[in-house]
């Protein structure tokens, strides 16, 4: 694999021809039925969810929606969900659990939306609920970061049995822009921030966060979307083999442990 710096990968994931979930769904799944709404407030266009077949197996698909043009981006709020988006995701996750359908979460967001209504409807609570409930969901969950994975808004679809990333995808605690604006009081230095944040798939594999890397072609996924879909598909086949037959207790224990062991600290017994 060529070792591109994170800032160059940022250009790749922001390329306007980069495939989005709308491109991948028909390539990866058959008979996709979209489901709408959180049953409390509304239907958030920033998150798409539904049921489909993956190689003959019924699955639930939940994803953040990047737009491919301005019109799509308006409809999907530039892939920045409101609380009702996360609540829709959780509703569909529980539906999947009821029928023991594996869940495939595709992560592609700069972050949860930061706005007045998002706060009023409990953005923090909505994300928190997803983290807690996905952790004990009695069905396998696979999350794949397609492009940008920004902060808690990404993690809300990221509590899973396996986390995979496309090889140019990034996954960070705060957007590189936000990082630069706090660190140097200068949001325009986001590329520089990108390169010190350790947010590439390889960095995160080293940190024990990313489990598998799905290869993109030279230059990025937009150069050959079919090939990327094929790679995602073959990753998912393997992931299913690894997890679908696990007893549920073991699956949940492994999921808990996957996150439980992340963290770097020392215990100084002498001081």
């Amino acid at each position, binding site marked *: 694999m060529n070792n591109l710096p994170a800032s160059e990968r940022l250009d790749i994931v922001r390329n306007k021809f980069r495939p989005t979930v709308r491109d991948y769904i028909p390539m990866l799944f058959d008979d996709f039925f979209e489901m709408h709404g959180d049953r409390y407030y509304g239907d958030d266009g920033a998150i798409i969810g539904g049921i489909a077949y993956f190689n003959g197996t019924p699955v639930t698909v939940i994803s953040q929606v990047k737009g491919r043009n301005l019109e799509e981006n308006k409809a999907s709020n530039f892939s920045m969900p409101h609380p009702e988006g996360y609540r829709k995701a959780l509703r569909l996750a529980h539906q999947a659990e009821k029928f023991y359908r594996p869940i495939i979460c595709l992560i592609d967001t700069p972050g949860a939306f*930061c706005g007045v209504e998002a706060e009023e409807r409990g953005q923090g609570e909505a994300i928190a609920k997803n983290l807690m409930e996905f952790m004990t969901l009695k069905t396998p969950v696979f999350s794949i970061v397609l492009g940008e994975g920004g902060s808690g808004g990404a993690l809300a679809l990221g509590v899973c049995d396996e986390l995979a990333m496309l090889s140019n995808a990034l996954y960070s605690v705060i957007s590189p822009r936000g990082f630069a604006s706090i660190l140097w009081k200068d949001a325009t230095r986001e590329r520089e921030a990108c390169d010190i944040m350790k947010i590439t798939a390889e960095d995160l594999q080293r940190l024990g966060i990313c489990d598998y890397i799905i290869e993109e072609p030279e230059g990025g996924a937009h150069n050959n979307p079919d090939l990327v879909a094929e790679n995602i598909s073959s990753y998912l086949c393997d992931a299913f083999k690894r997890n679908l037959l696990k007893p549920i207790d073991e699956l949940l224990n492994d999921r*808990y442990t996957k996150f439980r062991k*992340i*963290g770097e600290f020392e215990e100084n017994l002498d001081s």
Partner: protein
Amino acid sequence: MLEDLFSVVKTRFNGTEPNTSNVKKDVKTDIPKDLLFKCPRCSNVTFMDDFTGNAKVCPKCNYHSRISAKERIDMTFDKGSLIEFDKNMTSKNPIDFQDYEEKQESIREKTGLKDAIITGEATIRGDRVVIAVMDSRYMMASMGSVVGEKLTRAFEFATENKLPIIVFTASGGARMQEGTVSLMQMAKTSGAVARHNEAGLLYITVMTDPTTGGVTASFASLGDIIIAEPKVLIGFAGRRVIEGTIKQRLPDDFQSAEFLMEKGFVDMIVERKKIRRTLSHLLKLHQSKGGAANE
């Protein structure tokens, strides 16, 4: 996020700009500074003794100022009852962030803390409870590996020993300096809450100033009962970020405890002086369940 927070607090204080005519500061120019408390919210000056005697709440405007974890523990739990967990845990530098060790070293020296949270087991009026108290003086109590690990262990201890847990939250969010490792602490702590929850045990959150970002979006919002101190800041996104998006100034009470209660995200707002009593009552009320679920 952190930067936003400071500005939030500042603008909110400036928003309720004092009328300086009532301020007694001129009178006391001959008294040494540490004998006086000047409220950052209403600008009134009171004797430090009156302020500290009032649990560090401004006697004039009821501003619940930030207090240290140690002060919180002393005023809330039975004297000398704390058995502290993981006292000496310190974080490494997972993303080799420049000057992270040095920065922490100097804060450790200043505060006497090893990181932003104290966890342990204590009693309130004799009832055993696991506790976790965040301290905003330590990097705005941001959550990195140590906060995540200590909280997770505290929840696991509570689950194993069938004990209720009380968490006093205060945080600027996830700790940027530990990168994506910090983000994952949100999932890790929420997982530990989930197991405690499934065991049928009681979890009470007390939100103090400020509870924001990744902490609001994880364990802080997951209590069975969520208490907040009056007028504290609670939110997910930074005020300045939102103001930047909507291009207008937000009202002063936006993201206040009262605002959150009105929107349905806080169960009760409790004055600092009544928190010990309230917690004790709530613990007693849950004793047949929360204290001993399977007995």
